[in-house]
């Protein structure tokens, strides 16, 4: 028995291992176990259901592991099958055991594949009759035993290959005795019966049909009638889908395995059937695929196979053969190839029936199917059938495929066409003289990207086009492809760098590699493919911004890459691509300065007039980036950007935004994009030092930026904020102080706006100002920002504007770094600190949850920035009192609820401890250094609750941190998230236990006092009290403060209970009440008046006006009496009766009904009966 449980545990363990072992296994390790399992099969089947099921699951789990490398089973297949077959042949085995045996066999077949297994099944004459009989007695509709029928059908399919005339198996003379069915007819019946069943046996039946009906003796008698049967059945109007499928599948199998000469007489009829049948328009993938598979195979029946003349010329793939051939290798090759060529030439005289044309037509239709699976099948078909056609006709097929590539055809046709071209190319059927036509089509397909709604179609076409290029690499001689190499290479590299989809970039990279390797004529091939390999191109940013630059250094590719970006990607439908395009153009500018100035920029300015919003947006972004890139170049050459750009482009830039204003391009939905782009444009022009100083365009730009600051889309505000520093730096340095103050005053006024986003935008704007503007107005700005962080009754929920004000203060501190010693009065600094520290206690909530966390995070970052700056420049401000507040505040954040906040707090806390120059006055710094060693903390995952809690919990013992740390832990331990509660509580409880062991009861009492203090300080503040309830409940239940609560001298329980009672008084929050009940129950374990008080309180709740509360109270009370009943104040003799009363009463009944019971209960528990206060 114990063995059994061990085993089951192991199963569970194994089950939990991640699936997808890849190819990690090396051999069939469990073979003995599996063999034993098979041997035990008989006893297992007759055992309990659960034993059998467990065994079966274990068995299929073991074999399932080999699904991805089934060949490892090969050496043992024979052995396994022998055992199975023995069971099946043994007449003493019950049918039940046999069914299970077949079920086991199916698992093996599933893993290894039926084609392999079928070869190992015995195929003696003596097997024929038993297998057939067994199959005949099966119930076709029994859904439990389908694997039996499947395996038997499969088995029969190898047995019917025996090379004897079937009539010899009959045992009677069929010509004289007509009463008995011949074996042949019986097998045929089985084929027909199972070919159209709805379960998997259908597949095996099709295989059996193919093997059976193509037999020399059977085909004469039955093949024609079988085809008739399938044709008629499949077109009957009431045939189910799976019946049609079965018919098509069987026919397809026969066409595959049969001998061409036998089938050719049936081919025309079959073709007509397939083409005219109603199911041809069936929308299902399965039927469609079979339709085209059949058409393809019928086509192949019409044409004799040809032996490819070049099959030995493709370079020998066997290393050994090459080495052995030595110097004579080429001789033998040439000799043999002449022989085969002779043979191939004979093939040119083949006679092509008219139906072939029909077949090709149909397959080309299939290429345009809306179903990808069907297109693939059709493309393969085109390749195979064309391979058997004489040259001229094959070329005609290529012509028809090429006709698919017109703008009128949909994307499916383009995709199918590309696949077909690839298949043709791969087989060497695209004649070199066709290349001038094919290559332009493929280049277009590589570029195919048709917008549709908010996305586009075409990635599958581009992917397929890459496949075509890949196939070219393998199909053609170097000389043939040479004229097209540059075009193909450039187009492939464009896709490699700039395709939106990862699969296309990878496909293009692979195709390029194939071409470099096989053709060797691709310019700079090796250099490029080592940089732009399959893995490198997987990250889009990398492909756009780095790989493209590398490739552009080769002059063959520079212009094609840039041209593609400008023509196709600037106006791309995906905004992320447009932004990347602009950045890529920035990076590419140094490679083609003249081209950018003379061609690209004028072109882009033209696009800014476009009615297409995407085009305008992309163009503006791109212009900004290119101008900025050009300015960086001229700076190095001590020249000026206006000289390089020339009058026209400068004018265009200057008028760009006013043109947009005139055309109302900043309005409506599209306006947002244009604003975003223009903010960026202004930013880039400012950085490029465009010569607009003192020009009216400056005022216009500022006006636009100011407008954007109050826009309610965050990205646009940020865009403007981002542009402001560069803008002021460039164009406001020379302005008068008055002008500067004007701007500042306007921003300050808006800080007290009645619109939150206006406050947010302007706060950040003030924070982004450069130091020369800030300096004269420093006091004004800081004061205004500090005021903006205050919570007022109107702005209760505006945590975001407070966050932005705090961020602004932080960035001002940074901007003014050099002035901290001189211009930052201590008064400012203290005010800023107060603001930041206040920010740590912001816990605003709205329907998005704890939005105060943003403020707390911003404040922590502010504290970090300012404190580290002061440590460097003005450490005297950092008094012990201040630093203690900072450190304990941040430490508290490091043990609170939100992972992200905790992580940030942890990092900041750690940065203080190890800062250089040192932050002075950190309390207990040495202990902290030991707790947070530098080398370890660099690598810590600060997001992991399991790790960080363990570290911070130790801070509780340091007096400077105790209060804040416990406050933080109250929130975490009393939190809602399971992992958080688990991690924080285990850490805390373990810490308490070790503290008690090391330092004794005194220390724990001390902590309890502080916990009480926290509770006392936060009375009636639900944010703390609700977690506090859960916290107390947990900690009392955990036993780690047991010594304190059972200490009769301690008044801790009593005081806490008092607070709990106060909290519950008049409480209407049902969740709080429930937590309160749990907590009250914890007091039962304390044998003192506390217990009675808690019981009184609970008995009040037993008659709460909400029935749910009554019920919950009763069940919780019952549970705790089970655990703590003995240690409570309830008289021992009454305990059982009290519990009985509790659980036998339906507390959801009316109060009047339950009240007497409650009162009786109170008497039993030896407490006073609560009397409800009379309402005045």
């Amino acid at each position, binding site marked *: 028995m114990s063995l059994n449980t061990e085993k089951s545990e192991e199963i569970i363990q194994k089950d939990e291992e991640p699936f997808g072992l890849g190819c990690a296994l090396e051999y069939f390790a469990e073979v003995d176990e599996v063999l034993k399992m098979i041997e035990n099969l008989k006893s297992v089947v007759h055992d309990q259901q659960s034993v059998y099921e467990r065994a079966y699951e274990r068995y299929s789990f073991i074999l399932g592991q080999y699904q991805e490398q089934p060949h490892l089973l090969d050496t043992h297949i024979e052995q396994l099958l022998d055992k199975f077959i023995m069971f099946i042949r043994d007449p003493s085995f019950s049918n039940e055991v046999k069914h299970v045996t077949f079920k086991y066999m199916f698992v093996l077949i599933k893993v290894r594949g039926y084609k392999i297994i079928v070869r190992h099944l015995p195929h003696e004459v003596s097997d024929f009759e038993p297998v057939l009989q067994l199959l005949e007695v099966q119930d076709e509709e029994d859904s439990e035993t389908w694997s039996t029928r499947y395996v038997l059908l499969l088995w029969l399919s190898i047995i019917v290959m*025996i090379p004897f005339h079937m009539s010899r198996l009959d045992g009677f003379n069929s010509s004289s005795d007509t009463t008995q069915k011949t074996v042949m007819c019986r097998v045929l019946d089985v084929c027909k019966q199972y070919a159209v069943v709805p379960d998997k046996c259908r597949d095996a039946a099709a295989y059996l049909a193919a093997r059976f009906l193509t037999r020399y003796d059977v085909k004469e008698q039955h093949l024609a009638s079988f085809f008739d049967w399938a044709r008629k059945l499949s077109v009957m109007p009431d045939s189910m889908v799976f019946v049609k499928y079965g018919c098509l599948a069987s026919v397809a199998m026969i066409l595959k395995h049969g001998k061409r000469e036998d089938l050719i007489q049936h081919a025309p009829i079959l073709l007509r059937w397939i083409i005219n049948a109603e199911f041809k328009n069936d929308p299902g993938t399965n039927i469609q695929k079979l339709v085209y598979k059949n058409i393809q195979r019928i086509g192949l029946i019409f044409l004799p196979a040809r032996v490819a003349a070049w099959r030995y010329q493709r370079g020998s793939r*066997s290393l050994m053969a090459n080495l052995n051939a030595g110097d004579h290798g080429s001789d033998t090759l040439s000799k043999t190839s002449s022989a085969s060529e002779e043979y191939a030439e004979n093939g040119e005289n083949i006679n092509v029936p008219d139906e072939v044309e029909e077949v090709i037509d149909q397959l080309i239709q299939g290429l345009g199917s809306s179903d990808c699976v069907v297109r693939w099948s059709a493309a393969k078909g085109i390749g195979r059938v064309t391979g058997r056609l004489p040259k001229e006709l094959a070329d005609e097929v290529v012509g028809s495929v090429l006709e698919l590539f017109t703008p009128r055809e949909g994307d499916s046709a383009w995709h199918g066409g590309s696949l077909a071209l690839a298949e043709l190319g791969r087989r060497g059927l695209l004649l070199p003289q066709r290349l001038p036509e094919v290559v332009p089509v493929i280049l277009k397909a590589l570029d195919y990207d048709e917008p549709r709604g908010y996305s586009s179609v075409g990635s599958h076409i581009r992917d397929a086009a890459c496949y075509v290029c890949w196939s070219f690499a393998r199909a053609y001689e170097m000389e043939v492809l040479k004229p097209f190499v540059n075009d193909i290479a450039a187009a492939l590299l464009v896709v490699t760098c700039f395709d939106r989809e990862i699969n296309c970039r990878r496909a293009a990279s692979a195709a390029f590699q194939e071409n470099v390797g096989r053709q060797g004529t691709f310019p700079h091939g090796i250099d490029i493919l080592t940089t732009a390999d399959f893995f490198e191109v997987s990250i889009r940013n990398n492909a756009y911004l780095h790989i493209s630059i590398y490739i552009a250094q080769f002059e063959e590719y520079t212009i094609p890459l840039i041209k593609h970006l400008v023509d196709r990607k600037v106006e791309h439908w995906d905004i992320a691509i447009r932004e990347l395009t602009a950045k890529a153009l920035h990076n590419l500018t140094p490679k083609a300065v003249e081209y950018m100035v003379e061609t690209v920029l004028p072109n882009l300015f033209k696009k800014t007039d476009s009615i297409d919003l995407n085009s305008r947006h992309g163009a503006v972004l791109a212009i900004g980036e290119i101008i900025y890139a050009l300015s960086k170049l001229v700076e190095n050459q001590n020249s000026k950007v206006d000289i390089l750009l020339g009058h026209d482009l400068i004018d265009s830039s200057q008028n760009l935004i006013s043109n947009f204003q005139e055309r109302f391009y900043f309005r409506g939905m599209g306006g947002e994009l244009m604003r975003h782009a223009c903010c960026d444009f202004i930013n880039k022009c400012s950085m490029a030092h465009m010569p607009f100083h003192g020009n009216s365009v400056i005022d216009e730009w500022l006006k636009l930026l100011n407008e954007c600051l109050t826009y309610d889309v965050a990205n646009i505000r940020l865009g403007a904020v981002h542009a402001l520093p560069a803008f002021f730096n460039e164009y406001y340095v020379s302005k008068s102080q008055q002008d500067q103050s004007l701007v500042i005053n306007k921003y300050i006024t808006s800080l007290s706006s009645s619109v939150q986003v206006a406050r947010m935008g302007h706060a950040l704007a003030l924070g982004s100002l450069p130091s020369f503007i800030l300096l004269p107005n420093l006091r004004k700005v800081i004061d205004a920002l500090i005021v903006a962080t205050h919570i007022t009754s109107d702005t209760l929920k505006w945590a975001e504007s407070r966050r932005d004000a705090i961020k602004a203060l932080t960035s001002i501190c940074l901007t003014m770094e050099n002035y901290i010693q001189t211009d930052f009065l201590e008064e400012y600094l203290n005010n800023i600190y107060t603001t930041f520290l206040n920010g740590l206690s912001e816990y605003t909530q709205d329907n998005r949850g704890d939005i105060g966390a943003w403020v707390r995070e911003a404040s922590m970052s502010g504290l970090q920035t300012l404190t580290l700056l002061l440590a460097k420049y003005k450490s005297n401000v950092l008094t012990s009192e201040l630093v203690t507040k900072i450190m304990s505040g941040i430490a508290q954040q490091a043990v609170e609820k939100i992972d992200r906040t905790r992580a940030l707090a942890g990092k900041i806390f750690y940065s203080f401890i190890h800062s250089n120059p040192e932050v002075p006055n950190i309390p207990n710094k040495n202990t902290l250094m030991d707790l947070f060693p530098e080398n370890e903390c660099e690598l810590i995952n600060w997001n992991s609750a399991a790790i960080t809690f363990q570290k911070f919990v130790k801070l509780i013992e340091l007096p400077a941190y105790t209060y804040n740390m416990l406050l933080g832990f109250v929130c975490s331990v009393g939190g809602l998230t399971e992992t958080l509660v688990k991690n924080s509580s285990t850490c805390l409880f373990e810490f308490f236990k070790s503290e008690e062991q090391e330092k004794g009861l005194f220390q724990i009492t001390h902590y309890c006092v502080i916990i009480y203090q926290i509770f006392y300080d936060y009375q009636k503040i639900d944010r703390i009290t609700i977690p506090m309830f859960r916290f107390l409940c947990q900690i009392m239940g955990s036993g780690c403060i047991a010594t304190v609560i059972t200490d009769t001298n301690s008044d801790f329980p009593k005081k806490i209970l008092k607070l709990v009672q106060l909290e519950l008084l008049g409480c209407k929050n049902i969740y709080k009440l429930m937590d309160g009940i749990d907590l009250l129950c914890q007091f039962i374990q304390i044998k003192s008046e506390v217990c009675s008080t808690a019981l009184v309180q609970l008995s009040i709740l037993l008659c709460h006006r909400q029935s749910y509360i009554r019920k919950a109270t009763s069940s919780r009370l019952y549970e705790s009496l089970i655990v703590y009943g003995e240690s409570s104040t309830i008289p021992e003799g009454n305990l059982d009766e009290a519990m009985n009363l509790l659980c036998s009463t339906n507390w959801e009944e009316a109060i009047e009904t339950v009240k007497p019971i409650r009162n009786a209960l109170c008497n039993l528990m030896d407490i006073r009966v609560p009397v409800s206060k009379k309402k005045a």
Partner: protein
Amino acid sequence: MRILMLGLDNAGKTTILKRFNGEKIDTISPTLGFNIKTLEHRDYKLNMWDVGGQKSLRSYWRNYFECTDGLIWVVDSADKRRLDDCKLELFTLLKEERLAGATLLVFANKQDLPGAFSATELQEILELDKIRTHHWKIVWCSAVTGENLLNGIDWLIDDIAARIFTLD
């Protein structure tokens, strides 16, 4: 690789197969039906199909032709009376469409028997030089002693490997 082994009855096909497979060869009776063995040699997986060679079975050979990469034709070099028959069957076989392109290895078996024709003699008698449609080679061997079997198989594998993996 799928390899089909054919030849007249009593040529020694099953003996060769059993030799390859390391089985005992003292209890071999005429093959009534067919055998399939999967062998591994030089990292190639060889699926060997051996079909009985009795006259009555020959019309069923066609069932086994598809997907054949290599054909092994086994000749009883000592059975001088039936060499004409042997030649006829071989050339009929080579016309078969589904065997087009397959590599042909002729085993001149039973070289251990006295009076057996040598491989060169057989090449002439069977008019192998007339074969233009297939790569072929004749190799002497003795299935009973196991001599020279490996040479033949190695050549067959090399020839198949040199062209395979290009078309489906």
